[in-house]
């Protein structure tokens, strides 16, 4: 059977076994290789995507569970032809991305945090990305990046 879902704003139909991992469907069937596989067992968060606004490990989600859902991947932060999103720019500016394997997942966890109205409090940011492991930055610059984006998003909201 085919599963109908919305990925980064576009409706897609997936003719795949229901237990296929969402991660594989995104990367291999839809060619969205921005989402990375880290551990493949739900420990590292590298494959984080948003399903109906919730952060999930796409390595642990079978496609049959996202039938009819809205899925957002890191590609959705900067659709083709548009500029980088606020979070991506702040990661670039503060040096929040180093080797890059955790970055797509970090961006999605941070996006969910900011979408939920998260602010610049360091403990809250640390809690929001606690499911995303990073081995090479020491987290400090990632947290600075998320705080910078949260501040900018808050300003943008109050201006609009």
């Amino acid at each position, binding site marked *: 059977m085919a599963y109908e879902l919305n990925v980064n704003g576009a409706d897609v139909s997936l003719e795949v076994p229901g237990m296929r991992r969402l991660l594989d469907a995104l990367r291999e069937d839809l060619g969205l290789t921005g989402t990375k596989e880290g551990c493949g067992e739900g420990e590292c968060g590298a494959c984080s995507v948003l399903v109906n606004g919730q952060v999930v490990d796409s390595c642990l989600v079978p496609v049959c569970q996202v039938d009819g859902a809205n899925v957002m991947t890191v590609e959705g932060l900067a659709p083709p032809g548009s500029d980088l999103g606020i979070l991506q720019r702040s990661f670039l500016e503060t040096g929040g991305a180093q080797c890059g394997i955790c970055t797509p997942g970090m961006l999605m966890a941070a996006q969910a945090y900011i979408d939920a109205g998260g602010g610049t409090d360091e403990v809250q940011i*640390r809690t929001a990305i*606690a499911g995303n492991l990073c081995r*090479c*930055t020491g987290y400090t*610059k990632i947290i600075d990046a998320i705080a910078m984006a949260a501040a900018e998003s808050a300003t943008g909201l109050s201006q609009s």
Partner: protein
Amino acid sequence: MQAAAKLRSTVVKSTGKNFAESYLEYARENGGVRVDQQFEPYPGVQFDDETYRGDAYPAFGWAAAVAEVHVDLDTGEVSVQDIVAADDIGHAIHPVLAEGQVEGGTLQGVGYATIEEIKLADGRYLNDRLATYLIPTSLDAPRITSILVEEPFSGAPHGAKGVGELPMDVPAAAVVAAIHDATGAWVHDLPASPERILAVLHGIKPPPPPGISTTTPRSPDIAPSASYAGVPDSALDPAPDARTDPQPTRGPYDG
């Protein structure tokens, strides 16, 4: 670098043209070029492998770290509250990325000091995955302050010395010294786990040093006996263990 220069000059001499314009043509006509070059010590730097005297490198980076820890005296748990790392990296070519390298290496050093431990049994990893080999999360990590110290080295491009490994070398010592300062206990093996800290505080035998393979005793009912005579030893191996045996990787259509 010298090998690359020789490769380039071989091509340029043969074609008499600019390298970028002529290398494809050269390769079509002649095939590959081979140049052999081996490591040569930096001029003026000597190291004696027999006596371990001399300088192994022309430039040395220096690093220092200071840590602040909380130690729970009931559970032995250590929480690193704050850490400052100062690293002499020669010259920071990209200061933001260089700071990131220092911060990342410092956190690896903190993990090494507090939670990371390879456990082996019968020569095999017991914790060969992120579910069992724990590394610091954002909630375990202290805020890291990095200080770049720039003492340029004249013999390298832009005066750089290197930044990859240096920051990992000192944080564990700083954390262990902070634990001593807080509790009076010197922990001699890493990680300074609750078990090791409580063992020192209470004067009991600490766990063995990390990375040493223990041997699982065979259970008596499968031990070689008269009835097993002639059965190869391999047939007596215990059943596969999901915790220690390599697991099949998942294919795209597994489910």
